[in-house]
Structure formats: structure tokens, C-alpha cells
């Protein structure tokens, strides 16, 4: 949030600044395990991907970890088995229509066994508020006269009396707004910073900037789907850090730093050997079509 202002300020300097792709030689490092384990409480296939790190400029698909045992257990002892599929994916499928991992407030544990190594992580399933509505407004003062259209805004209200963090994903005609790997996260209670404000309407920048493409308006008949995911505080921190480390340019870059998630090895050492994170989310979704 802070850097939005600075970025705006720097726009005015962008005439003389420049960014160039350069060739750099990098050292290779030790190979580490990675788990990409973001689950939801929906009755659909749930995926966990196990891969390893690769050289930084290796643009091929990440190396898959084969032959691992992956389970998720609820605090009531319910066991969810994830079976190995292709490319490092481990899949849980609903056993019957409506089957899902869905006990609000419950702590779930991820268990991963690779050879004789054993890793664990926990996540609490938090509730998510509904998306009340989506509105489109024609912009009568467009940035560019050749590009006219509508700006979208969605409305949702934070759940009162608890500290909540959300992840907003928007899809314009099925395409993720902002592109894959860019995260629109809310600060605590969809407010600002560490401010103790609870149970309010999501603040304006979240309602608008998270669901509009920077350079393109919505046009008549475009479809917008907004999805709201509840995430744990530590997942928020993790994704925020990933976001910083993958967009760390400009005058106000922070020192490049490794990002560690919530996965620990069984000896409960600090997380160093397995990167990535485990989180289970509640989801609410709403779709709207632009009409004249």
C-alpha cells in the first residue's frame, strides 16, 4: 500500500529512468523441496503440488517430486488422502457429490513423507464474507480517448469481531486480472496496515484496483468473476513476501530475501528444507456481466 504512493510519485520521473533486461551469471544452489498446497472448502478436486527448486534461469516446468505420501488430517481425525498424479500433483477428489473439506474454525494438518523425511504444516479454515454485489460504471473521463469503457467495483464487508485476511482473485472473461502469480491481498480486516478497524466495508482501493486491469476497461458483455478467499495470517505474510520478492525493483526495493512458509520438518526445525506453504480457504464467488 505504502509503495503505491511512491510508485505514483515516481511516474513523473519515468521519462528519464529505464529498465533493461540484462544477462547475468548466477551460481547454482542446493536443491530444496517445495510444496504448493492451497486448498479450498469446495466440493471439487483439491491439488497439492510437490516440486523442487531449479536454477533461476531454468524456464522449464519445475522438477516434480515423485513417490511422496501426502495426506491432510482434520483435528477430529478425519483423513484425506492425496494420490499422486502427473507433474508433481497430488489430488484429492470428492468421494460423493457434496463431499468437501469443510469444518469452519477447524485446524487441518498437512503431512508429507518423501523417502524417510517427514514434513508437516497446519492451517485453520477461516470463514469468508459473501460478495454482496458487483457494479460497473461508465468512465466519462477516460485516460485515452480511443479507449472507453466501464470500471468495475465489488462490495463486501469484513466479518466482525475477528482478525481476517483475504485474497481477492478476479477473472475477466476467464483471464486472471493482473496475471498469474500476482496477488491482491487485503491488509487485516480489509482495512489499512495494522489499523484496528473491524467489520467494515472493504476499503475503496480494494474494491476497485484489485479487479480492474491497469490499461483496459470492461466492455459491454464482458464477464467478471470475483473470488474471495479467506487466508491465515501467516499465509498472508507469506504471499505478501512472495509478492515483494517477485516485484522488487525501483528505488524502493527491499533487500532480496528468502521467503519461508509454514512447512516444518518433523523435528520442528525452522522451515529451511521445504519451501512453499499450506493454506485452506473458504471461498465466495460472484459473477457479473456488463450490460448497457
Amino acid at each position, binding site marked *: 500500500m505504502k509503495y503505491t504512493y511512491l510508485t505514483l510519485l515516481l511516474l513523473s520521473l519515468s521519462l*528519464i*529512468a529505464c529498465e533493461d533486461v540484462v544477462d547475468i551469471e548466477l551460481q547454482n544452489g542446493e536443491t530444496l523441496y*517445495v510444496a504448493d498446497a492451497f486448498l479450498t472448502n469446495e466440493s471439487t478436486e483439491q491439488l497439492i503440488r510437490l516440486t523442487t527448486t531449479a536454477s533461476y534461469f531454468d524456464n522449464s516446468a519445475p522438477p516434480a517430486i515423485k513417490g511422496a505420501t501426502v495426506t491432510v488430517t482434520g483435528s477430529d481425525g478425519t483423513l484425506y488422502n492425496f494420490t499422486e498424479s502427473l507433474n508433481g500433483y497430488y489430488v484429492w477428489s470428492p468421494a460423493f457429490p457434496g463431499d468437501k473439506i469443510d469444518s469452519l474454525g477447524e485446524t487441518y494438518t498437512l503431512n508429507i513423507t518423501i523417502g524417510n523425511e517427514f514434513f508437516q504444516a497446519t492451517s485453520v479454515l477461516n470463514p469468508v464474507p459473501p460478495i454482496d454485489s458487483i457494479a460497473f460504471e461508465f468512465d466519462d473521463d477516460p485516460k485515452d480517448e480511443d479507449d472507453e469503457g466501464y470500471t468495475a467495483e465489488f462490495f463486501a464487508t469484513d466479518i466482525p469481531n475477528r482478525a481476517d485476511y483475504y485474497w481477492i482473485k478476479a477473472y475477466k472473461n476467464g483471464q486472471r486480472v493482473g496475471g498469474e502469480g500476482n496477488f491482491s491481498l487485503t491488509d487485516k480486516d480489509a*482495512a489499512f*496496515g495494522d*489499523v484496528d478497524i473491524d467489520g467494515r466495508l472493504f476499503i475503496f482501493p480494494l474494491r476497485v484496483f484489485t479487479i480492474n486491469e491497469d490499461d483496459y476497461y470492461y466492455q459491454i458483455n464482458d464477464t467478471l468473476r470475483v473470488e474471495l478467499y479467506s487466508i491465515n495470517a501467516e499465509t498472508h505474510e507469506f504471499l505478501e513476501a*512472495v509478492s515483494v520478492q*517477485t516485484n522488487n525493483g525501483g528505488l*524502493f526495493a*527491499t533487500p532480496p530475501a528468502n521467503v519461508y512458509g509454514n512447512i516444518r520438518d518433523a523435528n520442528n526445525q525452522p522451515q529451511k528444507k521445504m519451501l512453499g506453504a499450506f493454506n485452506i480457504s473458504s471461498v465466495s464467488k460472484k459473477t457479473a456481466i456488463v450490460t448497457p
Partner: protein
Amino acid sequence: MKHITFISLSLLFFSSIAQQNFTISGTIKSASNGEELIGASVYCKALSLGTTANVYGFYSLTLPKGTYEITYSFIGFEDQVKTINVTSNGQYNIELAETANEIGEVIVTGERSDANVKEIEMSVAKMDSKQIKKIPALLGEADVIKSIQLLPGVSTVGEGSTGFNVRGGGIDQNLVILDEAPVFNSSHLLGFFSVFNPDAVKNVTLIKGGIPSEYGGRLSSILDVRMNEGNSKEFEGSGGVGVIFSRLALQGPIKKDKASFLIAGRRSYADILAKPFLRDDLKDSKFYFYDLTAKVNYQINDKNRLFLSGFFGRDVFGSGFFFDWGNATSTLRWNHIFNEKLFLNLSAYYSNYDYKLGVNIPEEPLDNFDWNSKIINYSIKPDFTYFLNNNNTLKFGGQSIYYIFKPADASFTTGGDGSSVTLPEKYAVENAVYLQNEQKIGSRITLQYGIRLSNFAQLGKGEARYYRDTVPGVRKELDRIENYDDNEVIASYINPEPRFSINYSLDEVSSLKGSYNRMAQYLHLISNTVASTPVDIWLPTNNNLKPQLVDQVAIGYFRNLQKNTYETSAEVFYKDFQNQIDYIDNANIFFNQDLDADLLSGDGRAYGLELYVKKVKGQLNGFVSYTLSRSERKVDGINKNEWYATRFDKTHILNVVASYDWTKKWSFSANFVLSSGTPTTFPTSRYEVQGAVVPHNSEESRNNVRIPAYHRLDVSATLNLNPDKTKKWDSELVFSVYNLYARKNPFSIYFQQNEDDRRVTEAIQYSVIGTLVPAISYNFNF
């Protein structure tokens, strides 16, 4: 150390009793505008005795009864010889006339000609506004801080970054004072320009080592900026029109020789120029910065003089979103001459730094946000100079500062539903007393020794947060909160800070100097970005954060050549830092009540060699500086707990500044800077999470590589439009080109996913200024 101080102090009280001596004293000023001549020399040839005027132009010289010819001199001014019959103590105020400015004759340096060798001070650089104006600058705007960055031992992480680094110290370790009042953020437009208006600045002194006891509160340097007093003889104006700023300064007598004023202002007009080119939604953008400097002084009588000065500067940016910041300072000073030996300067100041940011979009009346943050401080500072005798000058005094930190005062409304949030204010008091003597022993040795005793206390009303110990590098968990009442001491620290300098004169033209200083710093700038931002937070020392300390030793050889045409010096230094702040990985420093839990503390060290050659006379003049140095930190939890180079560490820095006065009409200047690239961290590996390709360094190292070297050439040509001084209206045109050969100097190299193919990762080199920047400006003086 303490013993030596004590013995010497006792000795010197006995040494001045014997003979019948009298003291002559007074102030030395310029005859043309009444400005004090800081450092002007007073010399009695018959006795080979001399002294120099202090920063207020005051001198005191003790002579045996008799008649003497006393010579008053200052570079750029005619010598004045006065025959004085010394039969009693007497006050002799002197005005020196400026020498006619012939081409290539003399550059005014605000110094006696052999000061480089003769003065006790080392690791000190001085510049006056004439010198600063000669250096080619970005967009043709002469700049105090940019000029300072060309001196040996001074560096910066790059263009656009706020502040400067001195001998391996962070940017918060420089005490920047404008007429005694601290300026917390010395930059306009991030770091592209500094807030000091060169038309109002008299001179600038940067002290990097051997820091005298009268200064304290920061570890690495003192940047002492003094404003002009205002012409007390006649009305005068100066100013300029440039590409980015316009400037105007007016000064003149309120009552001739008694009272004068100075008022100087600048405003940028980038926004006005840019307006026709802005898109609709940016049409209403506010984007400008300005500063206003004002000063009046009143000579009440021969013994009393009052000065009141103020500075107000602000950067404003906004278009729906708004963001602005600025400093305001005001200083009241009283110079009092008790007698020919005892001089007092009493300063009281107020300083305020604040920033605001928020959102206020007219079309969205139900949603807005407004946040402001401030640091306010009040201080009183008496400084006495006691000219005990010709061999001993005592300085003593103290300072008391009261701080109010207002980290956040925010109000916000979402969907018409409003709230306000205030993070608790923090209060602190910083006190110091000092005693110092400068002593000449024989004709070869000058010593300066002293001690400063400083104390800092964070006061209530407030809370102290305590955290549990954890693995270094991991966020600490809150253990408990203790509450304190009004003015109750939350945490208190006391530090003795010994200071020592020696000048051993080898012969008339060369000397060896050495110094040791310990400094303590109680304010910390919390900034985790490469370039510091205007919204970075200053935190007081508290129960978790310990005072920063440094011990510095420096040794130097100083030599002047060809009748003081060339000044040269070679210095080496070593600094040992304690309690340096660093941050856990991915620290959250923004609006965080548990900020202390994300901070790490460690040691630092810096060492280096600085070479400097300055040609002060002749048609061709300028300087060459070279610095070979290293700046490192060692912090548990970073870089596997081993030493790592700081982000601003540069192994080699070479700066060449040259001016050539070709004819009365034309002069040319150039400067060339070359430095090693700054360190950064490159990843070894990548991995994917939720579509993001994340860089990872599996060695857990920090600053393991360097970005490519930085070099740049700037040139300027000045056309004097009134070469023969036939008109009262003096004016000149300055043509300049910054970054002449358009080098794209890297500021950083970072790693990202390709915009179009998200699976492809690439390294991006970011250059703040990727092209040459030509400019023209017009300056005038009447």
C-alpha cells in the same frame, strides 16, 4: 585518556598567571556586506602569535603589554594591518575589503590559506556557496548535498536516493543542521535535490572524524550548514530561472550595520510545465516542491547580537491520492561577549518533520483516508568559548532536546463509515554536557581533547513492549506490555563520549594529524529499502533498541604545495560500530506496533583510505578525491551470522571536479565520478507457488555480488553577461549537461517474471537516469 584530560586541564590553569598580558578581541566582517568572516586570521608578526575567528567571526588574542602591528587577513580579501598599542584589554572590530576579482586569481574558500595544514581539524571538508555553484549539477541546480557527495569518504547508493553515507555509516548517522536546528529529511523530490537554497547558504562544513565535543547525537558525520546573515550594508538580490526551479533571494539592512535580513525562496514548476502533457485523470495533479529561508539579525550593541532564522520546505504530490512531506525549523540565537575572553552562543530551536498521505477523490465522497506522522523537537543549547590564553581555548556547554514522536494519526472512511486511529505518541529527552580544550604545545603540536556526556531517556506516557527471545532472524513474539505514566522513565541510557585530536606540524607546509572519537546516537531511522523514503520512521531508543555507538580512529598526512596553491591530504580511518539495526527477512516496518519484534541488532566496521588533492588557485582549479574503503555489518540472523557488505559499500570511488576560467566572459566546469557497483543479493534458484516464480538464495547469503560500476561525466559552461561589471545587474547563463555520454548507470538489478510469458524469469537492470539531461539556467544578482 581521562587522566590526560584532567592533568592537562589542571596545568593550563596555572600557565597564564605570570606575565602582564592583555587581550584584544572583536569580530571580523566583510566590508561589502557585513557577513562575518569565519576562520579569518589575526596575526602578530613580532611575536609570531596568531589566532582565527570562530564561526561567529569572533576572535580573541592575548598579547604582552606593548605596541604591535596586527595583520588581519582572509582569502579573497585585502589584508589589513592595524597598529595597536596594547595597554589594556580592548575590542577591535575589523572590516576587510574584498579583493577585485581578477580572472583565475583566487577562489574564496572561506579559510585561511594554510588551514589544511595548520588547523587541528582533520576529516573535515568545507565548501562555500561559490564553490558549490561551480560544480555542474543535475538540471543546472547547484546543490549542497550533491556537492558534498563528491568529497572523499562520502558516498550514496545512487541517484534519487535520499541523504548520503559517510565512512561506512548509514544515512541516519549524519547530523544535518541548518543554523543549529536539525533537518530530518534534507531532500526534495526523494533525493534529486537537497532542501538548501544555495543563494541563502553561506558555508557548509562536513566533519567526518575527529568530531569536536560540542557535536553529538549522530555517529558518522556532522553537516553544519550556515545561512548568510543578510547584507547589513546595502540591499542586494539574487536569483535564477532554471528548468525545474525558480529562485529568488533578497537581503539588505534594516538599520545599516545594526540589523539586516535575508529571505530566499524556491519553487519547482515541473507541474506547470507538464500540465499540457498530462492525461485527463492526472490533469489536476499537484506536483511541486518549495522552500523558504528567512533570517534577521540585530546587533544590539558591541556585546550582544540576536539572530532569528527559519526554514520551511515541502514536497507536495497528489491527484486524488496525496502525499506530501516537509521540514520546518526555526532558530533563535544570542551571541554574547562577556568579556574579551569569554564568548557565548545560546541557541534555541524548534524543528518539525512531518508527512501526510491519503486518498481524497472528489467522485468518491464516501471513501477517504488521511494519515499524518510527525517528529517535533525543541532544544536549548548554550556553547561557551573561553580564550584562556594564546595556547588554550576552552569550549564548554551542553544541549537539551525534547522529542515528541507522533507515529500515526489517521482517519479513514469506507462506504461513509468513518473512524480515526492514532498510534500512541512517544516522548523522549536527550541531554548532553561537554568540556573541551584546544591546546598548543610549542610551535609544533596542537591538541584538542574533551569529553561529552550524553543521556537519553524515553519518557511516559507510554508503553514498553517486551519480546521473547527466539532464533535470530525470526520474528519475536510479544511477551508483555508495561504501561508508564506521564514523564515516567521507560528506558534510560548514559554514554561518555571521549574525543581527542592532535596536529603535529612537520614543517611549514606539512603536518601529521590523528584523532579518536566515540559517538552515541539515540535516534534510529527505520528504513529497509535501498533508497530511503520520505515516509520512513524515526524511532527513539527504547527498552528494546539500544543506543548506536561508534569508535573511530583516523590518521592523516596533510601537505600544501606551491605556496598553498595545492592542498593535499591522505587519511586512513577505522570505525567500530555497535548496536546497528537490521531487519528480519520480509520485515513489516509499516504501521506496525510490534516493529521492535522485526528488528535485529548487530555490529559494524568500516575502514578505508582517502586521498584528496585540491587546487585552490589559478585559472584551472578543482579537486580530485579517491576513496578506498569497506563497510560491513555482522548481525545474528543474517548471512549465516557472518560479516556482509552494506548496501552502500563501494570499494573504489574516484571524483574529479575541475573548473576553468577561460575569459572574463566564459568559464567551464566538469566533474567525473567513478565508483564500484554496490552489493546486492542474487538468487541461486527459483520455485513456483500459486503461479508466482519465486527467487531463492539457497546459500542464505546477503549482498553476495556487486552490480556493475557507476561512472558519469557532467559538464557546464557559464557565460557572464556582465563581464566588465559595467552594470549593477550582474547575470549569467549556465548551460549544463548531466550524464554527458548517456550512460545507463545501474541502480539495482532485480529478478522478475516476464510480463508476457510468466514462466520465463529475467534479470532487470534499473537505471534511475538512463539518458543525458541537458539544462539551461539564468542567474542574476543585483
